[in-house]
Structures are given as structure tokens and as C-alpha cells.
């Protein structure tokens, strides 16, 4: 039995002294900023002209820590990326935690450290938060919810509805890294430590592209659960277009390819947490690709396909061995609790 003091207990969620201590020692000391510090019922943000983007996501990944990241980094980057996919600049995040009684404090501290580091990298503050502690078994270790608010610069209109035939389809880097890493970690498959999650905040690279190529980016989407295949199919349906994808141009890390091969998993269905698909004006696609290559978030970016005016929702994959088949969205998720 661990020392009670070293674990999160129901007291910590009681709203009493222990709860205050937890907030001070674990959260405020790490996430401190002028809007969070007063610990008011809600944070107050100045209202900007123009439009706001608002998003929320919950994170239940198992295990909490995995090579390349952890639930904390995922919770910040995931929500920041959801904002970035609309071309929004993140302004503030909320942080809600549901903690299973008995979680070692040291684990919680590591996660909050990671949240602080990810928020700093993304350049956004956590301005409000909440913690609940539940009985053992009522939750598994730790669940996190983050919401994010972002502002959209005047004139920026990024959404799948903007996708049109002729658009270049760019993937900002290798695919499937996150999904395969978590799966291998969870099943203890130990592929020689060569797999790493790609969790990464995409807001900086997106902001740079949006600024340099006004109107050049029609849509952005991060291929998280369901992977690149599912995301492409969804966008093809929403935008009423067809797509052609060339498999040999899709970047895939070698160890990821090998692990997928061994496990018989199609990497097109595996989650990514630091990549985006860009649907771009063909007139500037070469320039966009070059700009991506100069940025840490897009070094391995590749033009993987093109939007065509065929049957709505139809995504054709030209396989690396010169065959052809349709791509379909993932059904019957084989990898629950991946993020």
C-alpha cells in the first residue's frame, strides 16, 4: 500500500484544504499565469473583433506515458491542433481532470509538467481548470478534458467546404507514428524502442502558412483516430469531391512500416497526433511544400495526392505496386483509448 500522502485521495477532490493544496502545489506552481492565478470561478478574456474558434476534446489514452509523449502533451497538442485546423490562433485553454483515487502524486506531477511544457511550446495559457477525484475503479487512472478558444484572422476561411478539384493534398509528415506506438506500448510488444508518438502542436506552422499564402490553403485536418484513410474519406464526402492518392509518396517511418507489417495493421488507419492534411491551391502547392520543409512541423511533408471532380466521396489509392483500390473509412475501431 502506498503512503496516502503520495497518492491522490478522495480528499483532494473534496473542495477542502487538501484540494486547495493540490491546486497550489501541483497545478499553480506549474501552470501559473495572470489569468489562472486568481482562481476565480471563470477566467475573463478580452473580446477581439472578428471570429472565435471554440473546441473541446477528452483524452483517455492508455497507457498514460508512451515513447514520445504522454496524456498531458496529447491533451494540449490535440486541442491546439483542432483550433489550428480552422486557421485559428489559440488564445486560451481549459483543463479538466478526472482522477482515479490512488493515482500516485508523482504521476500527476509528471503529467502536469508535461502539460506546462506543451502549453509553453504552443504559446498558449491554461486559464481555467477543474479536478475531480473518483472512487477506485470509477475511472482508469486519469482522464483529461481540454477546451480551447482561438481567434481567426479576418479573411481566413479554412474548411472542407473550400476543397475543390485540382487541389493538391499534402501530408505534413510521416503517418501512423502515434497509433502504432501506443498500441505497441499497451501490448508490450517492444519493437526495440524505435517507435515514437508524433504528438506536436501544429499552430505555429499553420500560422506561418496562413500568413504567407493567403487563400492558398483551402482546408486542413489532423488525421487522428481513423488515420489518414478515414480523414480523406470524410473530406471527400463533405466537399463532394473525389481524390487520387499515391501510396509511394506517403511518408512512413521504417520501424512503423515494419511494426504494422508484423501486426497486420494498415497504417492508413492509424492515428496521428502531430500531422495535418493540407488541401491547397495547386498554383502555390510547390511553395507551400517548400515552406513546410523549412519548418520543424513539416520536414517530411509530401504531396500525396490530388482532388479530382469524380464521384463524391470516392478516394482511389494507387498502391506502391502499381495496383489500385478504393480507400474506405475505418469502421469498428480496433484501437480504443488511443488518445
Amino acid at each position, binding site marked *: 500500500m502506498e503512503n496516502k500522502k503520495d497518492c491522490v485521495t478522495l480528499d483532494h477532490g473534496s473542495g477542502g484544504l487538501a484540494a486547495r493544496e493540490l491546486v497550489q502545489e501541483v497545478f499553480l506552481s506549474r501552470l501559473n499565469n495572470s489569468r489562472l492565478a486568481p482562481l476565480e470561478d471563470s477566467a475573463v478574456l478580452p473580446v477581439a473583433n472578428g471570429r472565435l474558434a471554440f473546441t473541446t476534446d477528452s483524452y483517455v489514452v492508455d497507457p498514460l506515458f508512451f515513447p514520445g509523449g504522454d496524456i498531458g502533451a496529447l491533451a494540449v497538442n490535440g486541442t491546439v491542433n483542432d483550433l489550428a485546423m480552422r486557421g485559428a490562433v489559440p488564445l486560451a485553454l481549459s483543463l479538466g481532470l478526472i482522477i482515479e483515487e490512488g493515482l500516485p502524486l508523482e504521476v500527476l506531477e509528471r503529467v502536469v509538467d508535461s502539460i506546462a511544457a506543451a502549453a509553453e511550446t504552443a504559446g498558449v495559457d491554461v486559464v481555467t481548470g477543474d479536478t475531480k477525484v473518483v472512487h477506485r475503479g470509477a475511472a482508469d487512472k486519469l482522464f483529461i478534458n481540454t477546451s480551447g478558444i482561438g481567434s481567426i484572422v479576418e479573411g481566413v476561411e479554412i474548411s472542407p467546404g473550400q476543397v475543390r478539384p485540382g487541389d493538391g493534398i499534402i501530408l505534413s509528415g510521416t503517418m501512423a507514428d502515434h497509433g502504432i506506438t501506443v498500441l505497441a506500448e499497451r501490448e508490450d*510488444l517492444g519493437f526495440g524502442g524505435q517507435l515514437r508518438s508524433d504528438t506536436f502542436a501544429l499552430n505555429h506552422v499553420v500560422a506561418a502558412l496562413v500568413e504567407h499564402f493567403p487563400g492558398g490553403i483551402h482546408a486542413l485536418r489532423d488525421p487522428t483516430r481513423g488515420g489518414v484513410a478515414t480523414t480523406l474519406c470524410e473530406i471527400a464526402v463533405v466537399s463532394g469531391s473525389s481524390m487520387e492518392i499515391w501510396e509511394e509518396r506517403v511518408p512512413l517511418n521504417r520501424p512503423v512500416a515494419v511494426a504494422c507489417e508484423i501486426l497486420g495493421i494498415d497504417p492508413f488507419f492509424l492515428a496521428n497526433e502531430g500531422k495535418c492534411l493540407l488541401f491547397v491551391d495547386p498554383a502555390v502547392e510547390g511553395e507551400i511544400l517548400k515552406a513546410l520543409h523549412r519548418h520543424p512541423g513539416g520536414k517530411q511533408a509530401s504531396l500525396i495526392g490530388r482532388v479530382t471532380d469524380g464521384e463524391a466521396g470516392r478516394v482511389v489509392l494507387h*498502391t506502391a505496386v*502499381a495496383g489500385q483500390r478504393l480507400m474506405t473509412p475505418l469502421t469498428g475501431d480496433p484501437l480504443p483509448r488511443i488518445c
Partner: protein
Amino acid sequence: MKHVDEYRDRELVKSLAFRLADQVKRPLRFMEVCGTHTMNIFRFGLRSLFPADLEVVSGPGCPVCVTDSADIDVCIAAAENENVVIATFGDLVRVPGSRGSLAESRARGARVEIVYSPIDALELARAHEDKLVVFVGIGFETTVPTVAAAVAQAARLRMDNFCVLSLHKVMPPVFARLLAGNHQLDGLLCPGHVATIVGRRAFEPLALDYGLPCVIGGFEPVDIMQALVQLAELAARREAKVVNAYPRAVAEDGNSSAWRLVTDIFQPVDAQWRGLGTIKSSGLAIRDVYAAFDARRRLDFETETPAPPSTGCRCGDVICGRCRPVDCGHFGGSCTPGHPLGPCMVSSEGSCAAFYRYGEH
């Protein structure tokens, strides 16, 4: 993956596609009999490279798909015993029997663990000394040796809380059953994995007795295309023999030491196949000497299982090549991988799942 790359060579695949088109001069119908062939033909888009006159249908090569609903019921009966932990490969968990699936039993509180190998199941038994771990053995010749090895190891370690519920099957009898009917096949693409264990020679009776060209093929795109070219050549000459197009893995007599281990522990038994009924000596049961590791003798099962509710699922026809998945009225509507009605849609190697996933609808 160095060794894999040469079997995924784009130019080589293209040139094999030309040769295949050259060889197919009349409508030909081939059957492949291995879930990995099914999957890879779809996944690599090889169907788009086949000439229009060549039809390749899937046979009973997916172990989950051929599992009879009554056998699923037996697994569920085992799972409902509160002293039992079921250990099984993932796909089986979602296959519906007459009273639901193992996944549903798990939701109701049964212990059902997904393992990647029978050795994992042994580990599980070590970790749960107070429970009986029942490993559901499913698969053909390829998979049985590892299960036999696990039983041998459990016997050596005198483990008394590990046993196997064998649903294992062997291939030659089911081929014989299929080919004895009006099969309308011009050639058989024989499963490379099974051949690795049983050897090329084991397929000879098929070619000789049924006058059917047979080619043993590997699983990479080049392997598959090469095997199909050779099969088309044999079919063009109407030559009934067994060609080994996968010599890097398959020997004349297979892997005799692996098979010896299997026959030490298992003996032939009549088995139920979905869509085909009982086939004589097509299953493997644990021998009397190893009775302690036989779940069927460790646990009391109801022998009567109700007939499965008729859902209209045509898996039985699909796995015999009698109809295509798209010919089933449920396909893509009431039956999808997210909500499967039959095992062919559950298993990642099933024809219905492959048709669905890779867009043949």
C-alpha cells in the same frame, strides 16, 4: 524489411500483370484459400491488375470464417464458468454464435482476454493460479504447431490451470469436399503458410484426384502475381499438377518436426465447418494422454446447442466461393465491420471485410 522490398517491386509486378494478361485467353476462375491471400490481393490493389477474364474467388481459408456457430456457443459456455479465463485471438471475440458473441459475454462480466500467441495464454495462467485459463485454439496447420508447443510446455511444467479448447482444422479434407462438388474452378492458389508446414507433396492428391492445376504461392504482391501467372499457364495447358511457387519457404515435405509435435498432441477428429457441415477427419482434438489440457474434458459443456437464428448471412456460401460478398443482401447495409452479422465480416481476413474495407461495393 529488406527482404520484403524485392517482393514489392513495382516494375516486376507490372511485368507480371502483362504476363498474366497474356496467359488468360479464356474465362478462368481461380480460388485462393488463405485469409492472407484474400487480404493482400485487396490491400495491394492487385485486382485492378487482373485481366477481365480472370476471376479470383476466396475459399474457406479464413479460420474465423469457417468456425461454426455451435463452436462459438461452446466458447461462450466456457466463458460463463466463473472459474474460467478465456484467452483468444482478437477476431474471434466478435463472432456471433447462437447466443451472442464472446464480446457480449465479456460485457456481462466474463473474463475474456485477447492474446497474441498461445505462450501469452500460458503467462496468463501463471498470473491467475486460482483460475482455469482456456485458450481457444483456432487456425489451420500453420497455427497448430505453436499451440502444440504450448501444451507440451504446460505438460512439462505440470501446470494444472491451462487447457486448450481446440477448434483447429486441417485443410486437405475441406479441399476434397469442395472439389468433389460442381466447383467450376480452373485452378487453386494454395496457401503458402499451410504448405510451409505440410509440404508441397501434401497437395498432390488434389491435383491428381480432381484434375486441378495447383500452385503454392507466397503472400507478397510479387509472390501472388507470380503464382497466378504459373496457375494461368497450367490452366491454359489444362495440366493438373502442384507447382511450388514459394520455394523460399516451402519444401517438398514441409516442416516435419513441427508437424510431428502436432501429431504427438493432436489427433484427427470430425469437425463442423460453417456452410459445409461436418467433414470427416478435418479437425484436431487433443489426444487422451494430454486429456488434462483438453478444455472439452475439463469443463462440462451442454452438448445441445440451438440452431443459430437465421439472419440470412451467406458466409457459408461466401467461403465456398458460391457467391460474392456483394451478392449478400446484408452486405454494406445491415452488415458492416462495425456491426457484423457473420464471421466473414468480423475477421480482418474475411472476404466480406476485405470487400467492404477495400471498396468493392
